[in-house]
């Protein structure tokens, strides 16, 4: 059974003459325990795919199924126990008036856990924050710390699949590496399935087993990370992406 199966997914925005197809007939499958990357420039529709799976966008056609269960317009409560999401901007994804304790406590309560106090402490330990951060407000945290809280929130319901929407692009380079390592460790410990969106081929190469390359809302190529590292891409756009990524690395070093 595959963790995520996407068949002929199209996502629309707007109505009538101004309607726009943000995603055009996307097909891909993510196996359980796999880490799958979606790569593309901004506006290529990669985040929209994640949002459609999460149920945040409901103007889509096609078929999606998660862990063998087909998805409809509305997500059942059981879905949120299996699939969670980490957002791109940690400055926007935490409620400015809620402490870390309240954020995690509310999530745990919504999922019907009873030993909430102990679980909050354990979650904070798991993401490397510790108890000292429990009663802080988001404005008392740095970007990296906020993203750790957001990861703890996503892990709170003990999901099997985590959708990662450019989880490090809003962070400093040094912090990026910490968060990526944390995500890798958590995946290894918990046997999670990741579906990760990024425009950064370095990040994807570090995190993922397989990638899908998107351009103008279409998936143009699916390939293994080994092939990507060996620069054996078939589609011209993928080669272009790899090329520019390598050049930017050379320019920096």
């Amino acid at each position, binding site marked *: 059974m595959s963790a995520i199966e996407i068949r002929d997914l199209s996502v629309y925005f707007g109505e009538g003459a101004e309607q726009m197809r943000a995603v055009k007939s996307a097909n891909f499958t993510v196996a359980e325990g796999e880490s799958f990357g979606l790569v593309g420039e901004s506006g290529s529709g990669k985040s929209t795919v994640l949002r459609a799976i*999460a*149920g*945040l966008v409901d103007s889509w056609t096609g078929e999606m199924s998660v862990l063998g269960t087909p998805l409809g317009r509305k*997500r059942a*409560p059981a879905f*949120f126990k299996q*699939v*969670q*999401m980490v*957002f*791109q*901007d940690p400055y*926007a*994804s*935490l*409620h*400015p*008036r*809620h*402490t870390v*304790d*309240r954020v995690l406590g*509310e*999530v745990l309560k*919504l*999922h019907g856990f009873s030993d909430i106090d102990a679980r909050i402490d354990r979650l904070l330990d798991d993401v490397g924050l510790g108890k*000292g*951060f429990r*009663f*802080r*407000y*988001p*404005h*008392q945290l740095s970007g990296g710390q906020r993203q750790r809280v*957001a990861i703890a*929130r996503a892990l*709170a*319901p003990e999901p099997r699949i985590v959708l990662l929407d450019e989880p490090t692009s809003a962070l400093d380079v040094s912090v990026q590496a910490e968060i990526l390592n944390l995500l890798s460790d958590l995946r290894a410990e918990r046997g999670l399935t990741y579906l990760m969106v990024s425009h950064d081929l370095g990040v994807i190469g570090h995190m993922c087993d397989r990638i899908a390359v998107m351009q103008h809302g279409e998936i143009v190529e699916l390939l293994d990370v080994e092939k990507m590292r060996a620069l054996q891409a078939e589609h011209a756009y993928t080669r272009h992406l790899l090329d520019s990524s390598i050049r930017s690395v050379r320019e920096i070093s």
Partner: protein
Amino acid sequence: MSDTSLRAWLLADAPASRAQARAAAWYAGWLKLRGNTLAMAGLVVLVLLILAALLAPLLATQDPFVQDLGARLKPPGWEGHIFGTDSLGRDIWSRIVYGARISLYIVALVALVAPLLGLIIGTVAGYMGGIIDVALMRFTDIFLAFPRLILALAFVAALGAGIENAVLAISLTAWPPYARIARAETLTIRNSDFIHAIKLQGAGPLRIITRHVWPLCISSLVIRVTLDMAGIILTAAGLGFLGLGAQPPSPEWGAMVSEGRKYILDYWWVATIPGLAIFTISLAFNLLGDGLRDVLDPKEAGQ
């Protein structure tokens, strides 16, 4: 706990309990408000007003209703009448002090009813969108079209003159602006990632509106209410002045100005003193409202 350790506890970088985190957040707001001299001046005046209302029987030098026709229209300072006496020989100082109770009563009632109604309608309209939004906002427009004084007149005609009916009329015409503010705030909040995040935890609309949207709308409403208070006090005073609000012999400030109007050229203090009271309180609310905006504005918080 000594002063310094209490301060350290409130400013702790890593609060150890929910209560401490909340107290620290309040304390940080208080420190910011304290830095604003004008807002503090407004706050001091309002605290004095509340104290005056609470301690009215102790502060008043006379019964505010006792008439003494032999000592009518005496100037301020005459035989222990700090602010003089009115046309029926009643002590103006005592009436001002008791009038503070009425003003506070009006303020409290309106501040409870109008913003709450506006908050509920505005956030529900903003969050749900679609047909519910259209229906609720057109309903709001209808109420916005009611002229305040005319509605008050209608209420008085239907239910009899009195302070409660005046308050009811003010409240029913005061909530639409709050609903619009709350809706505008909700529209900016509802597409933010933290709302998406809680949706992904399976939270329903009721929980999202009350726990996640309200806390962010309330600050702008509090600011608006504080700034509107001056207007509400003035409207209540205006209704009193027209004889539609508080009825004689109740020492409502607007009604007192109205009574003093007849003598304003010869006995200026009868109308001026309650007028100054209204002016001071309105100004104090405005100053405090401006200060609260600096403290509470969520767009500036945390930067």
